[in-house]
């Protein structure tokens, strides 16, 4: 290859082949002409790769690559492309084009890579952290506005305020902790909007309210979580917080006392409304009283209804038990109530539930409800404790689904499993790319199973024999150093030896040793459209024979059929789950295996690997019965499909699952060794031999 840069025409020709006809290659080509040849090649190579994902995206890339090369090296560009493709996979074309159009933004972020903390990277840690702190579970979500609605904590998508990464992480923690403290120490137990509305300038009043609450909550954190408080102070120093005004300092000290509550904050507001306010601190975010009120109202309404129903259930349960002992004639109207232990209610512990003045221990779900209500209101109001039946309000646990979600595909993904898929061209995963569902196969009655057993009667008999020989049995090991019984032969020998002056052997015991076959195996059966006809029949026959054999062996096994069409609809059909016995129902399901659509193998392998991981067994096997290459409607074919399947198999291997493939594709020798490895597959040339061979192959594999 020469080093001479490509000319305008040459680049145009290359690009024209890749783009849609509506996209004119002249402009990007002109931008690429001044580059060095190696850079041109680099850009063209990636353009080819991106075209496979989306030609419009490739066009955007080609148009901005030259500018990007001025601010990043090739490694940076690669990261830039991968992040754009990631965005494309998750959010679509428009947002990903935006990433490509803003190369300098990305370069700037790349430069601060060692400083920036991204929300996505800390979301998991923060969620655990906040849940650990105590109180009702809170969600964390990214948002440009930092506030809480008392259900979720909203944190910035990324932080780079401080020059060290760990300080930015601390800032996340402090923000989350401050918002958590608002929900935990009762900032929302007053109607903040109403309080602020009493002042001429409600916005200034809200600012004042927040400033006072910051003092109160920081003091509470200092008492309960001193380590965290110290870190928050470090942040304030780093951020160069100015000293609060003197008058403020003197007035707010009451809020630092133990037992200071939201009423103290409200009381102080009138004293300080006309004085100077301190500057906001770096982690306080903002307050959104309206959204808090909305979330809280919805939650309380739901919890009230749930609590009342739960109390009714408890009451009925208690009465049922007592009716037999007590005088059944007393129609006592029983009343629930609460009593708090000690004079001062503990913030951690809601008042105890009582029934007719006697304390009772409610079940866990009721306790959680009581705690959550107590956390919001600081009290359990009496009307909440009225045991009521199914009143007007039915808590609707499944909220109405906005119709547009259906089109965005989120509806289709509900309850489904999401899996990454390997894109060999990018050398990276497409995140949550495949949507997989487990479905039930429709059982089909019929004489098929019985017929098969008759048809292969001779084979079944010989299978029984061979498999019985394999079965784990108690074997007595002789001449052991220790064991359950004395091995008399060995002992006599040992004693004779001893009498004739030899050393007395220690090996005079027998040990009963159970040869356990600790094997769990999953069969993944091709249910693609191409199996229609006798391949399908051969598969079903093989499964019948296999089940007969496996029942003798006692190995744990499951059977799943796989098929689907496009990444949005990958399907695994349950024929037999691990824990399910081999019943008539299962037989009818084997009979019900029907050819469906396509074969997207990678995602099925990933899902079944997960199932195998959940099983405790020494040996875990995944055996695929297939009739051809991985193939799906939306470009999952050729090298792409093979590489993804190979990657899924490598993942399975890392998870301790051995994979094996039995195929009837006579061309399989071209690609199977690459996917499964040189020895982990068998090609059966004649479909009719499949039933004869499958059980036999299984025997060889596991003995």
């Amino acid at each position, binding site marked *: 290859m020469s080093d001479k840069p490509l000319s305008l025409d040459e680049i145009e020709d290359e690009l024209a082949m890749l783009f849609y006809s509506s996209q004119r290659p002249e402009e990007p080509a002109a931008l690429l002409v001044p580059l060095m040849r190696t850079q041109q090649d680099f850009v063209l190579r990636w353009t080819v790769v991106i075209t496979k994902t989306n030609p419009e995206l490739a066009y955007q890339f080609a148009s901005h690559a030259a500018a990007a090369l001025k601010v990043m090296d090739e490694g940076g560009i690669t990261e830039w492309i991968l992040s754009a493709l990631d965005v494309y996979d998750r959010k679509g074309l428009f947002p990903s084009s935006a990433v490509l159009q803003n190369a300098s933004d990305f370069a700037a972020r790349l430069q601060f890579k060692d400083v920036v903390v991204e929300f996505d990277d800390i979301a*998991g*840690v*923060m*969620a*655990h*952290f906040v*849940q*650990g*702190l*105590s109180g009702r*579970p809170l969600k964390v979500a990214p948002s440009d506005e930092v506030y809480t609605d008392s259900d979720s904590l909203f944190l910035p998508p990324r932080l780079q305020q401080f020059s060290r990464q760990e300080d930015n992480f601390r800032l996340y*923690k402090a923000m989350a*902790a401050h918002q958590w403290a608002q929900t935990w120490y009762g900032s929302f137990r007053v109607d903040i909007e109403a309080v602020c509305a009493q002042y001429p300038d409600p916005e200034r009043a809200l600012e004042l309210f927040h400033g006072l609450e910051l003092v109160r909550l920081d003091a509470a954190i200092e008492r*309960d*979580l*001193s*380590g*965290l408080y110290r*870190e928050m102070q470090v942040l304030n120093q780093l951020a160069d917080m100015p000293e609060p005004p003197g008058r403020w300092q003197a007035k707010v000290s009451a809020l630092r006392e133990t037992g200071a509550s939201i009423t103290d904050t409200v009381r102080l507001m009138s004293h300080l409304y006309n004085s100077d306010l301190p500057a906001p601190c770096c982690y306080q975010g903002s307050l959104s009283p309206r959204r808090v009120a909305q979330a809280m109202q919805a939650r309380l309404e739901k919890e009230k209804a749930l609590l009342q129903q739960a109390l009714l259930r408890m009451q009925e349960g208690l009465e049922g038990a007592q009716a037999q002992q007590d005088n059944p004639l007393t129609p006592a109207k029983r009343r629930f109530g609460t009593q708090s232990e000690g004079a001062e209610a503990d913030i*951690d512990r809601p008042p105890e539930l009582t029934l007719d003045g006697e304390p009772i221990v409610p079940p866990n779900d009721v306790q959680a409800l009581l705690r959550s209500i107590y956390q919001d209101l600081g009290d359990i109001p009496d009307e909440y404790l009225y045991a009521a039946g199914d009143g007007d309000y039915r808590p609707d646990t499944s909220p109405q689904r906005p119709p547009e979600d259906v089109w965005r595909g989120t509806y289709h993904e509900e309850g489904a499993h999401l899996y990454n898929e390997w894109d060999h061209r990018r050398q990276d995963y497409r995140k949550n790319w495949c949507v997989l569902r487990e479905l039930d196969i429709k059982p089909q009655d019929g004489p098929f199973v019985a017929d098969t057993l008759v048809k292969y009667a001779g084979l079944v008999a010989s299978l029984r024999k061979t498999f019985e020989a394999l079965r784990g049995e108690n074997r007595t090991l002789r001449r052991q*150093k*220790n*064991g*359950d*019984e*004395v091995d008399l032969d060995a*002992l006599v020998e*040992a*004693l004779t030896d*001893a009498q004739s002056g030899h050393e*007395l052997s*220690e090996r*005079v015991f027998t040990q009963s040793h159970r040869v356990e076959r600790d094997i769990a195996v999953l069969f993944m059966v091709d249910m693609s459209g191409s199996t229609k006809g006798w391949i399908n029949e051969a598969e079903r026959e093989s499964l019948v024979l296999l089940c007969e054999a496996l029942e003798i062996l006692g190995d744990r096994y499951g059977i799943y059929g796989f098929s689907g069409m496009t990444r949005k609809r990958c399907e695994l059909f349950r024929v037999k789950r691990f*824990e399910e016995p081999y019943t008539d129902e299962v037989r009818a399901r084997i009979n019900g295996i029907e050819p469906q659509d396509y074969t997207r193998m990678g995602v099925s392998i990933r899902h079944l690997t997960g199932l195998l991981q959940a099983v*405790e067994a020494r040996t875990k096997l995944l055996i695929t019965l297939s009739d051809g290459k991985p193939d799906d409607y939306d470009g999952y074919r050729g090298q792409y499909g093979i590489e993804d399947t190979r990657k899924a198999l490598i993942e399975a291997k890392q998870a301790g699952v051995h994979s094996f493939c039995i195929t009837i594709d006579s061309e399989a020798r071209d690609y199977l060794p690459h996917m499964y490895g040189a020895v982990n597959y068998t090609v059966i040339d004649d479909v009719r031999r499949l039933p004869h061979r499958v059980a036999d192959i299984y025997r060889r594999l596991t003995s």
Partner: protein
Amino acid sequence: MAAQILKSEQYLVSEEPYYESVGREIELFQAAYNNQLPVLLKGPTGCGKTRFMEHMAWRLKRPLITVSCHDDLTASDLVGRYLIIGGETRWVDGPLAEAVRCGGICYLDEIVEARKDTTVVIHPLADDRRQLPVEKTGELLTATADFSLVISYNPGYQSVLKELKQSTRQRFIALDFNYPDKSLEQKIVVQESGVDPQVAAKLVKFAHMTRNLKGSGLDEGASTRLLVHAGKLIVSGIAPRDACRSAVTEALTDDVEMLTAVHELSSSLF
């Protein structure tokens, strides 16, 4: 191999083991023992089941024979076997047979871990027959009134393989153990590790934080035992954050995100 034949006296607990009663478990156990009923202790790991047994053995002045069950534990490991000693075969009692003979308390810790055939030998002991057939010697041992059988079991493991069969569990008086409440747990940590009460309070608080996470990433919250370990490290001069990390956080999980989160929780306190 020299067989060591243990004397039952050495199983006697001579000094009072420290134990704080949480509910009425001492009373209940005493009553079950007096009525010759076997006992099942349920509860999460490290909440004091074993310590409770030591304490009860001391109270009742009976030898305590503890067997930690594992998946290779067979019936003959419990009942006994023949050994060759000096050219002769000699029968050696297993821990269960020994407890029956000497009228002690046999405590089978984590019974579900043992092989299934072991349950067969405890069944006749656990009902009103109170007998232990020793197949190999042809003996049928009948337990005296002093003998007591206790098993423990952690219902927290959600594995199907580790469930106690109904035919077994329905023979026992069940005592439910859980972590003690805050002030009591603090007292225990102070007593056991010698750490000062403020630090102990923080440790207990930390344990509660981890227990909040049970089911959403952690299989089990920090046990009282782990707190005692952390307390001991702190008394030996280890910084509290490091002590929590080594004694508690790392013991709870291997998941990187969870490790970070739990570590941040302990750092918030100290």
